[in-house]
């Protein structure tokens, strides 16, 4: 795993990508810091960070798009997968290398709260560092998501677009939840739509139409029965579910000086889940 981590990390700096990513992140950190904290005089670097979290869905896919796609395209994955090393070590090595690249600008930005502390009248370094940690963990979970999409396709562009689309939707969950209609029947229809998506994914993974259809039919029957028994439970239900997982929105808790452990657990869980999905995606390709 260490060998893969080292090679991957070095490969980012063998060409422009690593330097580009570090430079762009530093540019964003530097801009918000100079505008909000130096010019506007705000003592909270945490708020500045919360302002740039919405750029992560664009930047992270650029970092992750080549991780597995490029290996597949150039067939170097044959070296990795025929070496006496397990798939989870390969995935973890690559993941940690990308996290390390992302960590460089984040670590450099750790100097900003110190600057505020040394030069400002007020400073809240603990809040700032807690927010930086949350920001880093959100970025790390985005990297896991981007890596998963890179493992499903040979094309870097498609990997980046899929990751961007997914991350964009994720970061818009709170806004989306407000736009979803409240009517019971419309919510029920959305659930049926979700069942259709689930059916398609299940069918793609198992290649078994009947099994997938049975699962789909069961889900539809369940939705219909629940709707018949208690239609009120569908009122605004999709919006509520989306609102209850405000993922990116949780960064604000840290900025408000709340060290929200459930959010930390959520970020780490998402990372672990998508690294796991990446491993499954590679294994599935070996067996298909």
């Amino acid at each position, binding site marked *: 795993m260490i060998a893969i981590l080292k090679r991957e990390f070095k490969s980012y700096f063998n060409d422009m990508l690593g330097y580009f990513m570090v430079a762009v992140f530093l540019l964003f950190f530097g801009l918000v810091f100079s505008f909000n904290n130096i010019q506007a005089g705000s003592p909270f670097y945490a708020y500045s960070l919360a302002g740039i979290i919405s750029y992560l869905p664009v930047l992270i896919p650029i970092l992750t798009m080549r991780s597995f796609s490029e290996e597949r395209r150039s067939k*170097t994955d044959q070296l990795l997968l*025929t070496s006496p090393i*397990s798939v989870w070590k390969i995935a973890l090595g690559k993941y940690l290398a990308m996290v390390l690249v992302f960590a460089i600008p984040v670590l450099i930005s750790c100097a900003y709260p110190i600057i505020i502390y040394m030069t400002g009248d007020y400073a809240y370094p603990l809040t700032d560092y807690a927010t930086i940690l949350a920001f880093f963990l959100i970025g790390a979970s985005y990297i896991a998501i981007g890596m998963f999409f890179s493992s499903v396709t040979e094309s870097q562009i498609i990997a980046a677009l899929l990751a961007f689309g997914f991350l964009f939707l994720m970061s818009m969950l709170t806004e989306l939840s407000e736009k979803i209609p409240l009517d019971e029947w419309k919510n029920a229809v959305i659930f049926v739509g979700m069942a259709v998506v689930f059916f398609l994914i299940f069918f793609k993974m198992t290649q078994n139409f009947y099994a997938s259809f049975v699962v789909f039919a069961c889900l539809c029957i369940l939705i219909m029965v629940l709707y018949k028994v208690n239609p009120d439970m569908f009122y605004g239900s999709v919006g509520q579910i989306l609102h209850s997982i405000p993922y990116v929105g949780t960064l604000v808790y840290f900025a408000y000086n709340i060290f929200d452990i459930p959010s930390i657990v959520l970020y780490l869980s998402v990372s672990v889940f998508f690294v796991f999905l990446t491993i499954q995606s590679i294994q599935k390709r070996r067996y298909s």
Partner: protein
Amino acid sequence: MIEVKNLVKRYGLIPAVDNISFTLHPGKIYGFLGPNGAGKSTTMNIMTGYIAPTGGDVLINECSILEDPEEAKSYIGYLPEIPPVYPDMTVEEYLKFVTELKGVKRDERKKQVDMAINRTRLTDYRRRLIRNLSKGYRQRVGLAQALLGNPQFIILDEPTVGLDPKQILEIRRLIRELVIPDDSVEKSEGEEKPIVLLSSHIMQEVSAVCDEILIIAHGRLIVMDTPENLVARYHTKDVYEIEARTTEENLNEVLAPFKEMAEFEFDSNDMPEGVSKVRLSFAKGADVAEVLFKTLAKAGVPVRQLRAVVPTLEEIFLQLVAKSDEEYAAREEERMKEEARKNGIVAEAETEEAADDTAEESEEATPEEGETEESSDEEEKEGGDET
């Protein structure tokens, strides 16, 4: 020792590898031969753990590639068809990375990298970026990485494809040296001779390098033997080819005494004017070259050429592949007929059900899943009787 047991790989319903079994022994170079799409690369990819089989297993030193993949893979050095090299690394960096990947001990890494570089004659290129190397040198880098970690089993997938003739000879020499090393190569104590399995669709290459040949077509292993045995096995007739300056009729007349012993095959189409060619096939062991010559000389027929025709490995290969093609076509036809028959029975049963027949009748007509061959045979018989 490597044992491949009943290996099957299906893509959908199509078998890419169809129940292949063989055993490979140390110190030998095996040639994996087959036409394009025969299943060579798929078999090799399964043997190296790159893809998983649909059925069967590969045991490397009694270690299953499915149950204990990490240990099994530690015995393998693999050069795929496209060398798996990273263009942004130097040769030395890349090889060092591979030693780390293969879990070579820290103090042995440099020694192993040097050994691989020496063996593949890459000394002058060790600090070059791989992206700046030619195809031949990339191939050498690929071969060098396959040698790292002292693998007991080296798999090379079409190692000479796309190389120039000089590079082809170099690579062949390198492959031979893996089993019979030259004096310049330092060998560790107790190091066992490896098994080398190389795939190719070029017969000369395989016959020049390999001790044994495995011929595969349509995913099935057709034959596994030494080149000499293969020739001996398919050299069932003594064939003589005679080119003489005379007419076919005259040649036929002069050689009339041999008519009872041999089959005659005239083919003078490509010959210059006035020259005839005949092929005489005798039973094996008929040493008649001199007798033929004397007969022709006595009749005053000017002989341009008289030669014994021994089947080449290439001819044997083509012959075997052609036979396999026929068998495959027959199998496919049989399969399609079987499918059509099944569909026919199902369709028949459906019509009967639709016509609201009695339950007894529909039971007879519709074969249930998992029914024995006997019952389906009976149905076939019934169907035949009806017609």
